[in-house]
């Protein structure tokens, strides 16, 4: 039987405010444990939470950016459960009236487009951080745990998608798009390494053509876009095998293990959670002026979709390039800075960014705005190609060198004597040598084999250690043959 996967994502994002959600403690990351706490975020009796206006505004901005309806009336609820990372034994969250409902995100996949619905966006507070001692640092088998409440109370936005996602690739693209939107809005840095963006996935399978959903598993510990995609792919395989052998799927939470490349049971839902939500009596409701919301809408910055359209329209880029360039805000910013410095075709700049530069960034796992190669480096290098100083082949070596040392291309070219050989006589001599040394290829060329010509060009490039001017080699080789 053919199965279809039904995937929904819950994305938690720490908002980039200075102070916490309900108190004035700093939200700074990486400080010594328990240096950023107060009676409110420690849950001391008698303390009074007051919501951070900026956090509320950030959530509404996000809602506007992904076409949500904004609730003109909203309130906070208490979600009651016990866990050591939560000092109050309830989390302040939102229940029946979240700030935003009913949005959507459009996805451009490689060869089709699709739309993923967003059920709701609500605002809550983050929990503290646990450090498990003993048992190799894993919760299972630990002797005890340490709790750091610096993170407790940091504003946390949860974006819940509809179960509209059908493949792991769509899940990854959706999560990346959400990140690009949030970074463009300036509401979060969405740093997955530091946990400021966390993705949980619900996934079930159903026979193709059936309406009802199957039994779902919830995947946790998806700490990168790669984990998200691989974790879902694994889960699809596991559930398919189970269903095909007539096994029942158990509703449970599963933990993705990046090193073992598998998921395992974290906990089964023996009985439904009983959170006993009720309106937090410490917090009064919020009512928003529609004019204020329209003001926020008018102030929205350029978003990835608009940026993509602009790249296609203003720079004449193909959809493929435009999509990749807007995938992160930093890549788009890099591209635009480079194009502003460059007088040639923007597509050439896009090629270098999406090709060689991305290759090195990915290989070394460096973000584009943190790397040694800045837009000025790349532009200077392409200028050197344009004026004939270096060949495209040499440029590839220069990129590698710039990436390692951050030196400017001109300096590298001078230092390593990489300038292009464009002397008519010098190239002519090399071409003569190549013809003399490769009689078989010359014969094949005369027999009409085009490929033989390419081979001879390659030989000439080899003799010049990649420094020969390819156009000149082409020209002279044709003449002499």
């Amino acid at each position, binding site marked *: 039987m053919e199965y279809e996967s039904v995937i929904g994502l819950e994305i938690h994002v720490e908002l980039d405010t*200075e102070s916490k959600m309900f108190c004035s403690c700093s939200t700074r990351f990486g400080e010594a444990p328990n240096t950023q706490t107060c009676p409110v975020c420690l849950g001391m009796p008698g303390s009074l939470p007051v919501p951070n206006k*900026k956090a509320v505004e950030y959530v509404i901005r996000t809602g506007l950016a992904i076409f949500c309806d904004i609730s003109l009336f909203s309130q906070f609820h208490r979600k009651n459960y016990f866990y050591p990372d939560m000092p109050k034994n309830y989390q302040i969250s939102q229940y029946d009236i979240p700030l935003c409902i009913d949005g959507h995100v459009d996805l451009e996949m490689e060869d089709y487009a699709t739309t993923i619905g967003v059920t709701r966006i609500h605002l809550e507070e983050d929990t503290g951080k646990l450090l498990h001692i003993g048992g190799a640092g894993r919760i299972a088998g630990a002797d005890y745990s340490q709790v750091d*409440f610096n993170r407790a109370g940091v504003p946390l936005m949860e974006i819940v998608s509809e179960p509209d996602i059908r493949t792991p690739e769509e899940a990854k693209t959706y999560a990346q798009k959400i990140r690009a939107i949030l970074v463009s809005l300036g509401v979060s840095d969405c740093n997955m390494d530091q946990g400021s963006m966390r993705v949980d996935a619900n996934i079930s399978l159903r026979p193709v053509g059936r309406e009802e959903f199957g039994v779902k598993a919830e995947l946790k510990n998806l700490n990168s876009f790669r984990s998200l995609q691989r974790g879902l792919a694994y889960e699809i395989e596991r559930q398919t095998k189970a269903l095909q052998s007539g096994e029942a799927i158990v509703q449970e939470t599963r933990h993705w293990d990046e090193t073992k490349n598998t998921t395992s049971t974290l906990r089964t839902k023996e009985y439904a959670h009983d959170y006993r939500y009720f309106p937090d009596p410490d917090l009064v409701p919020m009512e928003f002026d529609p004019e204020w919301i329209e003001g926020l809408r008018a102030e929205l910055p350029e978003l990835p979709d608009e940026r993509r359209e602009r790249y296609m329209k203003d720079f004449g880029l193909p959809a493929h390039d435009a999509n990749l360039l807007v995938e992160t805000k930093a890549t788009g910013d890099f591209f635009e800075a480079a194009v502003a410095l460059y007088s040639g075709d923007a597509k050439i700049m896009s090629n270098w960014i999406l090709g060689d530069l991305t290759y090195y960034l990915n290989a070394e796992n460096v973000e584009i705005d943190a790397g040694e190669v800045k837009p000025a480096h790349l532009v200077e290098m392409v200028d050197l190609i344009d004026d004939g100083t270096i060949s495209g082949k040499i440029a590839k070596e220069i990129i590698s060198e710039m990436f390692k040392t951050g030196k400017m291309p001109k300096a590298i070219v001078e230092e390593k004597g990489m300038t292009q050989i464009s002397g008519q006589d010098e190239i002519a001599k090399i071409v003569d040598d190549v013809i003399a040394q490769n009689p078989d290829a010359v014969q094949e060329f005369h027999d009409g084999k085009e490929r033989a010509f390419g081979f001879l060009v390659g030989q000439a490039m080899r003799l010049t250690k990649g420094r020969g001017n390819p156009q000149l080699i082409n020209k002279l080789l044709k003449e002499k043959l």
Partner: protein
Amino acid sequence: MAISEKDVKHVAWLARLALSDTEVERFAKQLDVILEHAGKIAELDTKDVQPTAHAIPLKNVLREDKVGRCLAPEVALANAPHQEDQAFVVPRIV
């Protein structure tokens, strides 16, 4: 009786309370009385009444995003039954 012993045990578990059998029986009766009292509201027609979000007529009490003073860590940890490395220590979780 609207509240069963099973309900009482469930609520006790949610609150992490260990109740004896006599307590379960006693609380079942007491909770029943409370629910019955609250149930009087059901006699009213509340079709056109908005659910109460808050008992006092206030709205939009928000603060600006400004960092203020925090507790010194030793003060924050002063009441911790156990601490280590400037962190609260809790028993094993699972």
